[in-house]
């Protein structure tokens, strides 16, 4: 695809040589991890296509939309209320933050002991490698951790950054703060797009995003069947792609994939005979952060759930659709987003309950808790998660790693030993 898009990438200011090598590495990585799987669903062809065109066709679509006056808003967090962006005629996309590319550039302006996700998004920008970042009219940051909070200050020298304050507790005052932030965001989006948010367009946007959540919920129900009908890697990829692709098209395509999956479940066909069912829990896994999932699924286990922002944390709760007035709808949005059990909250007991419930529902043999090195909130919570799971009689393995490949062998040993233990 390189040749036909080069002019566009050049226009966006990408470093063409570095970007070409990035795509080569990604293509190989994708081939090893995804294309090598046996008996995949036909519906995954759509995902393969989206990934192969992730920096191509999708970016062209964004360019065309921008040419028609639509605005593109990029985010790094599931807290940014998407409904508001779509209601105002904007397009919301996730941004590149799952690969080591650009780390060297990032370390020029960030401390070395910063989590890989933060280093990655800054690195992608400084090394001019992410066409999504370059296509954004506004990038929404948020205060989910100190690292991100301070990184956005530095990042704002390089990109049009808007920061939302995320409360850290869930009392009445915090809800009021969050509502004020949602209203402030609404105004900022209206200013940017020049389009007012009305009860009508907001209701439409709520339904649009709920439809996407519902199809992912359906996918999660189907994948949990015994035998497991789809690899956890494939489902993770679907969740990752949900942040990039057009929501309507995505919902339709994943709906078709679910139909196929349903038939497969009826026929009782599995993808991983005898593999131990595990739940992956913890930090988000931005595309192409597939290292740990790949290790897990090549060590005799299969992931049947992701308790993650790129997983159930993002799809579990819908926005109530019964609101009639703009005020009621905004309140429903405030409510829905306040249910997110990010580790930035204190206390955060609902996350512990969710993990234990999910582990039981999915009938897993164990939970693998993934923490990004230097991500304090999740590292701290991993102790509590382990304790809650132990009390429920469910074993947990805590893994802390980043996007580099240097610890692959150690990780394999740990994961394999965990699988041997829970089998």
């Amino acid at each position, binding site marked *: 695809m390189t040749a036909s898009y080069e002019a566009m990438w050049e226009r966006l200011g990408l470093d063409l040589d570095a970007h070409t090598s990035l795509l080569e590495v990604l293509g190989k990585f994708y081939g090893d991890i995804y294309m090598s799987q046996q008996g995949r669903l036909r519906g995954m062809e759509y995902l393969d296509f989206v990934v192969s065109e992730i920096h191509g066709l999708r970016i062209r679509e964004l360019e065309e939309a921008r040419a028609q006056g639509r605005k593109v808003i990029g985010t790094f967090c599931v807290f940014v209320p998407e409904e508001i962006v779509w209601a105002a005629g904007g397009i919301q996309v996730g941004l590149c933050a799952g690969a080591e590319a650009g780390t060297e550039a990032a370390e020029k302006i960030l401390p070395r002991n910063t989590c890989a996700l933060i280093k990655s998004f800054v690195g992608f920008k400084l090394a001019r490698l992410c066409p999504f970042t370059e296509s954004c009219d506004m990038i929404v940051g948020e205060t989910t951790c100190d690292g991100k909070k301070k990184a956005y200050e530095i990042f704002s020298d390089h990109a049009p950054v808007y920061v939302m304050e995320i409360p850290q507790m869930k009392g009445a005052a915090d809800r009021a703060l969050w509502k004020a932030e949602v209203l402030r965001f609404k105004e900022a989006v209206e200013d940017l797009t020049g389009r007012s948010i009305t009860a009508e367009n907001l209701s439409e946007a709520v339904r649009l995003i709920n439809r996407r959540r519902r199809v992912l919920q359906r996918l999660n129900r189907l994948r949990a069947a015994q035998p497991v009908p789809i690899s956890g890697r494939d489902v993770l990829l679907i969740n990752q792609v949900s942040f990039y692709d057009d929501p309507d098209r995505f919902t339709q395509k994943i709906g078709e994939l679910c139909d196929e999956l349903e038939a497969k479940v009826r026929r009782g066909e599995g993808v991983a005979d005898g593999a131990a069912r595990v739940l992956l829990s913890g930090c988000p896994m931005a595309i192409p952060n597939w290292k740990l999932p790949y290790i897990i699924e090549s060590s005799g286990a299969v992931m049947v759930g992701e308790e993650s922002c790129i997983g159930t944390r993002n799809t579990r709760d819908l926005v109530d659709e019964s609101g009639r007035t703009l005020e009621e709808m905004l309140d429903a949005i405030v409510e829905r987003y306040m249910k997110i059990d990010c580790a930035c909250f204190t206390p955060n007991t609902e996350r512990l309950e969710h993990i234990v419930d999910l582990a039981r529902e999915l009938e897993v043999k164990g939970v693998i808790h993934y923490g990004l090195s230097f991500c304090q909130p999740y590292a701290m919570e991993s102790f509590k998660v382990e304790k809650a799971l132990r009390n429920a009689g469910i*074993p947990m393995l805590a893994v*802390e790693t980043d996007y580099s490949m*240097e*610890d692959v*062998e*150690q990780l394999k*040993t*740990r994961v*394999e*030993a965990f699988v*041997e*233990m829970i089998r």
Partner: protein
Amino acid sequence: MAVIGIDIGSRSIERVVWDPATGRWSWDKVPTTFDPVAQCRKLLADADGCPVVATGYGRRLVAEHFPGLSVRTITEIQAYARGVHHLVPEARTVLDIGGQDTKVIALSREGAVVRFEMNDRCAAGTGKFLEFMASSLQVPLEVFGDFALEADKQVTLNSMCTVFAESEATSLMARGERPQNIAMALHQAVVRRTLAMLRRVGGERPVVFAGGVAHNRCIVRLIGDSLGGGLILAEDPDVVGALGAALAGALP
């Protein structure tokens, strides 16, 4: 039929030949060198027809390079747990300090792995750390523990990071500190880290110490003293992984 267990570690490769009929076993050990496949070839030359179970970092090497053999792999965690349970059936915790990593494994009464801890990619507190420090003090690794036991004064070393510990040791030397005292401080640092891992998995007694570093008398003494009893030294400590692998191979 005999079963072969082979443990391909970062420093050495051990092989155990186990006879399930008699319960007897014998072992061999060779250095890993830069060509572990050639070393494995020596150890597996007469393995025809025997089931082989490989463990250790190089476990997949055997499966890849010896297609004619029937090879299974298990992790070091499983191998050490099995080996220790066989040698010391009452063992509740396994401590294995090897060349590249330290593992602490909690066992159930039946010898199953209940929990385990393993150091991350950093080699702090492992055999590698001791090897590096012995060479910077110019003491042969084999006698480094005995050398440390000649200490006559308590010196504290704070860093567990190989690079920083070396500069700390260097500055102690520059102040005229006896190298034996510095060696003792280095050993104590390893033991502090090991004890922290033991505490994390519960550290139920008896604790069985296996892996190459169990040959180091200073480490054994310091851990034994800190635990105040309940530390058992595994017989042929560096062969326990290969034994555990062989035992796994005898299972149906």
